[in-house]
């Protein structure tokens, strides 16, 4: 019997911990979980962690990285067995906030490609749009089905030291990670089944069918069973595992650009051994500029010549719609509270991280004077590239950034350094706090749906705030649970949990 874990020794100094309120003091929603994990003890927990790692390898859950030899290799997905728990009541508010946000963003994108009222009314400065690199002229005047542009949105949420949840950014181009959210639950069920005796986290596994319904709702031939395809750049893409996983789970075809063609009738077809087969909806995981060499980069071979033509003619639906990335801009992000007020006449439910827009003179002055304590981000980089992290920067770096910002203030925003919340995580010797964020996925078509929780990404290195998988980040299963936990689990809910785990394995 290994030594019990003593939660009184667990301290997340100065940070908000998702499970532990203070040393020895669990949050209400996590009380039973911490007791169960504590009782397992450090050794047993380490053994379960190992079992999870083995399981992930066996199940082939991987992400692709590029090896030195130039080929792509699959890496096992890093995973930590201690789940992150979110009280259902809190989640309901977050869910409402995300729906509100994405609804407003869709109205915003649609407006930008039509009347541009928000510019005329002076709510969004014209300069922001003029310098947007993800705005697509080619989309002006297009009416995608249901007026929706961002069908799948992955918004990153973080919790600051005082417990407030903020939206850090919205990913409206090709957000990834949802397959790992689904697989994390299966792995947890395999390696820590006893945790489910006291908890019935809300299921996450209806996502693929929700995604299919979302896509099917866009079909230009609503009477027929829609032909849905997932368009992937191919096996060298880092998210190829996810592309093939989602295609399998939805029962959709996984295609590459060369599998498709657009005919003279402006319809899109797959090349099958039975001859051409018409495609109704394409869940594309290829960036805008590679979608169609006729409309964008002529040299690109990833896409399908004429696809934009077919899309504009309404003969094939694209999700996300081309041009949706215009709302991915970090300067646009800084305006989202105004965007919500403008289109919905509501106050935002989830706040933005306080953000300085360098294009505004007062903000610019403040940012230049406080570079050492701010995080500065360029408008259109993703994956944490091109950022200045003030507290960790050198004088020379700050000098260079100051020059760059002064040269093009529109292109920069700045935010205070966040104190990301932590979750207990298995380390070599027991358990320690590690920083996390959360990426829920919001589906929009004829109705909106939000994943139950989302993908919790965790910075596995001590003290690190970097949660990206390519840079040493991992992930955790994420549980949304009711706070009104019965002291003893109800027989029926336990049976249900067992049935569920049987059918899913």
């Amino acid at each position, binding site marked *: 019997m290994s030594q019990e874990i003593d939660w009184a020794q667990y301290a997340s100094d100065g940070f908000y911990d998702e499970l532990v309120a203070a040393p020895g003091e669990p949050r209400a929603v996590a009380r039973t979980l911490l007791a169960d994990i504590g009782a397992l003890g450090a050794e047993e927990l380490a053994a379960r962690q190992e079992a999870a790692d083995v399981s992930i390898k066996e199940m082939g859950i991987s992400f692709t990285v590029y090896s030195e030899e130039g080929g792509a290799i699959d890496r096992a997905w890093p995973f930590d067995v201690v789940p992150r728990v979110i009280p259902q009541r809190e989640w309901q508010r977050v869910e409402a906030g995300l729906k509100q946000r994405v609804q407003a963003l869709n109205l915003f994108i649609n407006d930008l490609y039509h009347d541009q009222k928000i510019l005329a009314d002076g709510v969004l400065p014209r300069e922001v749009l003029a310098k947007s690199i993800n705005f697509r002229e080619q989309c002006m005047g297009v009416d995608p089905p249901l007026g929706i542009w961002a069908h799948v949105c992955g918004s990153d949420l973080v919790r600051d030291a005082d417990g407030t949840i903020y939206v850090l950014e919205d990913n409206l181009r090709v957000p990834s990670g949802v397959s790992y959210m689904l697989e994390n639950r299966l792995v947890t069920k395999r390696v820590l089944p006893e945790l489910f005796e006291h908890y019935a986290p809300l299921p996450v596994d209806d996502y693929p069918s929700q995604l299919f319904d979302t896509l099917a709702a866009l079909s230009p031939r609503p009477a027929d069973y829609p032909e849905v395809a997932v368009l992937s750049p191919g*096996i060298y893409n880092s998210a190829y595992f996810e592309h093939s996983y989602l295609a399998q789970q939805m029962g959709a075809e996984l295609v590459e650009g060369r*599998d498709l063609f657009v005919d003279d009738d402006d319809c899109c077809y797959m090349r099958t*051994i039975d001859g051409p087969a018409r495609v109704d909806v394409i869940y594309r995981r290829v960036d805008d500029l590679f979608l169609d060499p006729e409309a964008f980069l002529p040299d690109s071979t990833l896409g399908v010549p004429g696809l934009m033509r077919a899309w504009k003619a309404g003969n094939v639906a694209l999700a996300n719609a081309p041009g949706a990335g215009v709302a991915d801009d970090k300067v646009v992000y800084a305006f989202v509270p105004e965007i919500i007020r403008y289109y919905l006449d509501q106050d935002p439910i989830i706040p933005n991280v306080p953000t300085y827009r360098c294009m505004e003179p007062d903000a610019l002055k403040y940012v230049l004077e406080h570079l050492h304590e701010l995080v500065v981000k360029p408008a259109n980089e993703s994956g944490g590239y091109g950022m200045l992290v003030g507290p960790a920067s050198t004088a020379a770096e700050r000098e260079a950034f100051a020059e760059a910002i002064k040269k093009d203030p529109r292109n920069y925003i700045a935010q205070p350094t966040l104190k990301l919340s932590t979750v207990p995580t298995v380390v070599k010797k027991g358990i320690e706090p590690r920083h996390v964020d959360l990426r829920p996925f919001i589906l929009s078509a004829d109705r909106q749906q939000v994943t139950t929780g989302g993908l919790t990404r965790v910075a596995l290195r001590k003290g690190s705030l970097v949660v990206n998988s390519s840079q040493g980040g991992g992930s955790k299963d994420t549980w949304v649970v009711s706070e009104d936990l019965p002291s003893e689990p109800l027989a029926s809910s336990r049976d249900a949990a067992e049935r569920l785990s049987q059918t899913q394995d």
Partner: protein
Amino acid sequence: MLSRVAENIYWLARYIERVEDTARLVSVNANLLLDLPRGIAPGWKPLIDISGANELFEEHYKDYGERQVVRFLLGDRRHCGSIISALTAARENCRTIRDIVPREAWEQLNGLFLFASEHLQQGSTKSGRHRYLREMIASVQGLNGLLDGTMLHDQGYEFLRLGRYLERADMTSRIADVRSATLLPEADELRPFDTIQWVSVLKSLTAYQMYRRSEQIRVQRGPVLRFIFHSDSFPRAVRYCMETVRAGLERLPRNESALRTLGRLARSLDAAHLESLSHTELHDFVDELQAGIAQLHQEIATTWFLPLPEPPAAEAD
């Protein structure tokens, strides 16, 4: 089924078959040489002749010595017919169709690829070669068994069989051709060694035992040729391969033109009186057969696979 997926399955099968056939060939040649007196042994060049890659070989190697030939056939990535190249290609093909191929099959192929790369050095030595090649052949057999036993026997499976049996027919005919052409002059004192060569032809195809069972006469040119070209019950014989290909084609849509091409091929195979053919005539016959196989492949590709990418449009000035 997507054309690209069908094409990938087809090539996956061809590459896997190529791995096995190449491993057999190297293995049997090594054994043959041990049985022949030094002066008259054909050496290792015939293996390169079989692969048809003499030009590429001569570009990179000084002579047809054992080390060079074995290295070329086992581990040279510049040669697309080498075991390592075929495995790499098979693995890449398999990776893109992981939803069609059972997971165990992918893992087996992946394991085989890793084994082949990690033990290549050992496989290149005289002493380690036998084990290396035996492992290779057994793994491919295991992989084929997994595919046959666990994959959906739907259209995808037909493409798997098309690839496997076309490649096999091609390889069997090459082996017969080259072995036959390099056979010793018809001098009486060499007769015992002549038999050994025909035994080696059979052994390259693991056909020796089955030949004895089926033909019940001693090993000699005519019956051997008849067996490996015309048997309809030996699974590596050309006719058996063709019949399997026909069965596969018949289950696919839009198959008329491929079936016609196969029909012509099968008729010319049946019409050949192999026993009475001279070396030269046999060689011509095999050439024709291979051209027919290539044509059938072309027909399959045109009917069901992705069209080749159009050449990039000329730069407009």
